[in-house]
């Protein structure tokens, strides 16, 4: 059984779930930073608030002062808020978002996969050795072909479908500019029916899966382990149980897992329902 962290231990973690991705560090850092700003404002104003209530209560101050507060305190506080917000925006949020959401690694440098959401399950597809996905047509989707792949397309011959609700990625150490890191993962997200949302808290990742669109996300896992993949967008009565296990494996384990799927499938695209 998993050790269950106590309230205090969790508080020490900033009440955040365990982190397992690279950009997640920045996310956590950024969240912390904003909360410091918020705390400063809150404590400052709340202190002032309590003090004025006490000092200016009717019994202590029976005659109100027509002019009230003078001086620049309030203005300065406002200007400070503006400046800090501007810094957070320009210095952090915009560039970090650009990096995390837009600057994709090249396909060849990454583990590329597709994840398809449906009521109420998740399924992944790996491109196989050739690194190319087979052609897919939504209208071919049926019981035998849950993801609608064109059987005749040779590129699809070595593709592999994961079983529903069981998605694996490998953790492959690499060096980028002499720095030790891991191979990033690119996932093309889509949905067959309604809008779902792909959320892996450990990766600090959320992205809606929208039918009729394929939206790519990328992140770099940094830890092996089993993580929860949850659906964060209301998608019907099974929304609360639309989970999947998102497993980050060592390269060997991943290969083993993938090979198992491939042999079972006889090399052809196959689902495991």
């Amino acid at each position, binding site marked *: 059984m998993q050790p269950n962290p106590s309230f205090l231990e969790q508080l020490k973690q900033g009440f955040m779930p365990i982190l397992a991705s690279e950009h997640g560090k920045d996310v956590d850092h950024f969240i912390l930073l904003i909360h410091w700003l918020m705390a400063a404002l809150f404590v400052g104003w709340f202190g002032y608030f309590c003090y004025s209530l006490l000092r200016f209560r009717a019994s202590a101050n029976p005659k109100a002062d027509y002019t009230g507060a003078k001086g620049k305190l309030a203005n300065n506080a406002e200007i400070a808020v503006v400046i800090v917000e501007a810094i957070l925006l320009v210095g952090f949020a915009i560039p970090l978002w650009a990096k995390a*959401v*837009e600057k*994709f690694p090249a396909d060849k440098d990454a583990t590329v996969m597709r994840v398809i959401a449906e009521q109420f399950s998740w399924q992944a597809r790996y491109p196989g050795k050739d690194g190319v*996905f087979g*052609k*897919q*047509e*939504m209208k071919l989707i049926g019981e035998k072909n849950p993801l*609608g*792949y*064109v059987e005749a397309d040779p590129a699809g011959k070595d593709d592999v479908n994961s079983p529903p609700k069981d998605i694996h990625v490998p953790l492959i150490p690499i060096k980028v500019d002499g720095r030790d890191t891991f191979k990033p993962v690119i996932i*093309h997200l*889509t949905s067959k029916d309604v809008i779902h949302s792909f959320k892996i808290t450990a990766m600090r990742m959320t992205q809606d899966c929208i039918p*009729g*669109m*394929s*939206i*790519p996300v990328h992140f770099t896992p940094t830890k092996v382990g089993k993580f929860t993949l949850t659906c964060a967008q209301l998608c019907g009565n099974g929304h609360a149980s639309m989970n999947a296990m998102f497993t980050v494996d060592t390269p060997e384990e991943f290969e083993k897992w993938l090979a198992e799927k491939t042999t079972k499938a006889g090399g052809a695209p196959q689902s495991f329902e």
Partner: protein
Amino acid sequence: MSHDHSHSHGPGQACDHGHDDHNSPEAIQRTIKKYLMVGGILFGGTVLTVAMYYVHIPSVAMTIAVALLIASVKAAFVAGVFMHLSDERKMIYGILLCTVFFLIGLMGLTIWAMHDPPMQTLIDGKPA
């Protein structure tokens, strides 16, 4: 939001802006001519638009631009003359300006949002 400051109006100081000269019979007679003329322009504009459809302008963008231009001119005449917008009050301009601003925001930002990557449409399964 429109707010013209009516500071100068102390209590009870009414001042009539002489609204009547617009409404005198002579003035109305004159505007009637204007109305008929605008009616003519609107008919003409419609004929022009339809003619353009049969003429076949080679560029799509051009077709759209010209059609919308004619429509806007017609609309301007309706609003300006029939709806007396050309000599309406500041207050109304303010309200309409806000409206137009928000409308442009709605259309413009929505269209922009739909065309900013990394979103991609799924055409036969291949993310473009």
